[in-house]
């Protein structure tokens, strides 16, 4: 038996609701009726059940994809290609939280949108029963009548309620959308996936291309490469204390008791924690050092010239930091005088 597809247009809600009721009384199921409008009327206005929908799986699925991507971004990638940043672990919590938030949000939205498209079977690629006056405010009632007799009855209902337009056509003219939209999105999705995956294969070194990398061949890098050229003859020598044979590092202070006294005070502030209050290398901090802190009263210290000691204090040596910022040259000479008094060779008098 031929089925018929009918469409009636009504200009107000109350009439539409009445028509829906009367058509239902003719034995037509709610699922064989469809109401179209240019306003989101709630279904209860027409005495119908709210249409069913499934958004939770789409939104949760999207969220799960987001979590996976964020995990990949913040956990897997830093372990495949670690970048060490001072004081930070490879996967610190706060930036990871940002990644999880953003990717979850993005893919929840995408998931919901995909859910919207799939549940509505968009894009509709088949002919549909429709009338352009629906976007002019008319409410369309589409009915699938199982037989010609029922069709006549429905038309009568439509006409009794002054339907603006009544369309009737053989239902065979409106084929089922079927899986076409899935094919459409499946094809598009597969193309998109390939477009994302191919660069990822290259990125994660799954596939290696003999790519030319010119990054190290730049002008900037070449200038830094050796061998280092000698300084030109008229170059200005380095500023600050340097050991030049036969010359004192700076103007030294004479070794007087006052100078030693000042030196002792400065020594207890700046040196004692490592070299020990007595200068024997057994300071609280110094004992923990490896190699161990050298004593200042032994032969090793005695073997150094005053200028050499001055330079060690100023520039530092091995684990010992430079004290140039803490001590003025005068302070440093005071300490040298004091250190000389601790043992080893007697201090040279004067310059």
């Amino acid at each position, binding site marked *: 038996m031929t089925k018929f597809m009918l469409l009636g247009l009504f*200009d*107000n*809600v*109350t009439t539409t609701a009445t028509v829906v009721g009367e058509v239902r009384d003719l034995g037509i199921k709610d699922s064989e009726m*469809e*109401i*179209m*409008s*240019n*306003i*989101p*009327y*709630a*279904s*209860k*206005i027409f005495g119908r059940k*709210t*249409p069913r*929908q499934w*958004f939770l799986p789409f*939104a949760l699925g999207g969220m799960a994809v987001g979590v996976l991507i964020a995990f990949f*971004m*913040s956990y897997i990638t830093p372990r495949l*290609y670690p*970048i060490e940043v001072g004081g930070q672990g490879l996967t*610190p919590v706060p*930036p*990871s939280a*940002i*990644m999880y938030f*953003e*990717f979850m*949000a*993005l893919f*929840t*939205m*995408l998931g*919901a*949108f995909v*859910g*919207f*498209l799939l*549940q*509505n079977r*968009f*894009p*509709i*690629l088949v002919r*549909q029963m429709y009338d*352009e006056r*629906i*976007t*002019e*405010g008319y409410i*369309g009632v589409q009915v699938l009548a199982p037989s010609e007799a029922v069709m006549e009855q429905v038309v009568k209902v439509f006409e009794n309620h002054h339907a603006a337009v009544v369309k009737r056509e053989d239902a065979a003219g409106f084929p089922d959308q079927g899986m076409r939209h899935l094919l459409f999105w499946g094809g598009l999705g597969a193309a998109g996936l390939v477009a994302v995956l191919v660069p990822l294969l*290259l*990125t994660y070194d799954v596939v290696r*291309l003999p*790519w030319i990398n010119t*990054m190290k061949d730049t002008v900037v890098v070449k200038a830094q490469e050796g061998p280092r050229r000698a300084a030109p003859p008229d170059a200005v020598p380095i500023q600050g204390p340097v050991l030049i044979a036969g010359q004192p590092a700076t103007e030294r202070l004479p070794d007087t008791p006052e100078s030693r006294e000042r030196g002792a005070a400065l020594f207890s502030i700046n040196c004692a924690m490592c070299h020990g209050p007595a200068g024997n290398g057994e300071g609280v901090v110094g004992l923990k050092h490896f190699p161990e802190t050298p004593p200042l009263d032994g032969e090793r210290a005695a073997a150094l010239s005053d200028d050499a000691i001055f330079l060690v204090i100023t520039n530092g040596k091995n684990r010992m930091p430079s004290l140039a910022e803490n001590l003025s040259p005068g302070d440093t000479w005071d300490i040298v005088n004091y250190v000389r008094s601790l043992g080893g060779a007697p201090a040279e008098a004067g310059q």
Partner: protein
Amino acid sequence: MLESRADSSPFWQPHDPEDEHLAEQVEHGREEHLLLDPLPPAENNAIVLESMNKTGKAFWMAVLGLGGLTLAFLATWIVQIFSGIGVTGLNRSVMWGPYIANLIYFIGIGHAGTFISAALRLLRMDFKRPIARAAELITLFGLAVAALFPIIHVGRIWKLFYMMPIPNQRELWPNFRSALFWDMTAITTYIIGSTLFMYLALLPDLAMARDHSTGWRRKIYRALALGWRGTEGEWHKMESTSNILSYVIIPVMFSVHTGVSWNLAMSIQPGWHSTVFGPFFVAGALFSGVAAVILVMIVIRKTMRFGYFLREEHFNAMGLFLLIMSFTWIYFYFAEWITNWYGNLPMEKAIQRMLTGDLAPLFYLMLFANIVVPVGTLWSRRVRTSLPAMFVICVFIQIGMYIERVVIVSGFLSRNELPFNWVNYTPHLPEVLITIGTFGFLALMYLLATRVVPIIPLWEVYEGQAMQATRRIGRAILPTRTESH
């Protein structure tokens, strides 16, 4: 009959009360409220479609002018690419100049769009109905223009691929611990989310345009409308999807400008290193964004003859919104400065030179534009509903917020911890031309979009009109709102 609209006739057919006094009130309500003044949808469709089809002399003049600005932008950019970033006024200390300020500014004006749509939708504020799409378009184009600026700013754009690890021979990896990367993810999420959100609400209007246009337009709208017919299922699912997107996109909106602020705040640059920067930037973004939406509303109302859709009530509501955002911005700005002042750190004190130094004129202009102008005027309904006044106020706010960004980026950078690095920044011609040019580019894109996209969300207006009615209380007729869900 007065209490509720007779539902056995179309919602757009008026029912005038017989009592003369009441009829007068109904007439008054119709003038005041868009939702109480329904026209047949066919007429409204025609207003919108005609405004899209009309390309008069003024339109082409505008296209020419804005196209010229766009060309100036492109030409300057090409010059900058050929001669290097050195042609700009950027220097070693002030390495972030107006380009980064523009990035912040354009992302900022893009903020209000989705906020107005999503938050006001969830709060069921009726005044946003005719505004939503114009605002969302600002979001899209604002973000698109903003995304240009990092590319302009890097200088050697032919080495842009260095930033992408494809293929991996350079061993360059996006470091997710970098604030720049947080910002990039947030912006990407926001631009994709905003596009989906806008497209979703656009479907019924695309279907309308499909039904009532011809030629190439019909073909395009037909493809874009995806076969929308407006069945109960389609509407219901659209509603749910919009809800989900709204709930998700509001926190994302907050994260975007917070991410932008972290680009600055995660450094130890005095003036930037501040925990208040996140919310402060969000408040500033909404402030300038709402002002930008009002500007666009005024322009499209004038040029596209949307007097029917955009009425005093909408400007009034947006003006109040703007006033609230102004208060919020003032609060955050004060909070930032007082911490700075109380801390009294020498390097942070150096940036307080704004109060008296060479940046003082800009600083006080900003305070005037962002505080004195809005707070001093917007309390008055007469000002809020006057289009010329609102235009001037919103232009002031744009100027003020632009200065705020420039001062934060280049002003603070010019005084860092090491005084030997102190240097003042003066923009050179390329920055000026590129900045002005991109404003033209944004306006041009918007202008062209208004001829293709139905800029008034008609279905939202119809929904509001169908669900609004009047109710008689005593001798007065007052608007009421029906909630059908």
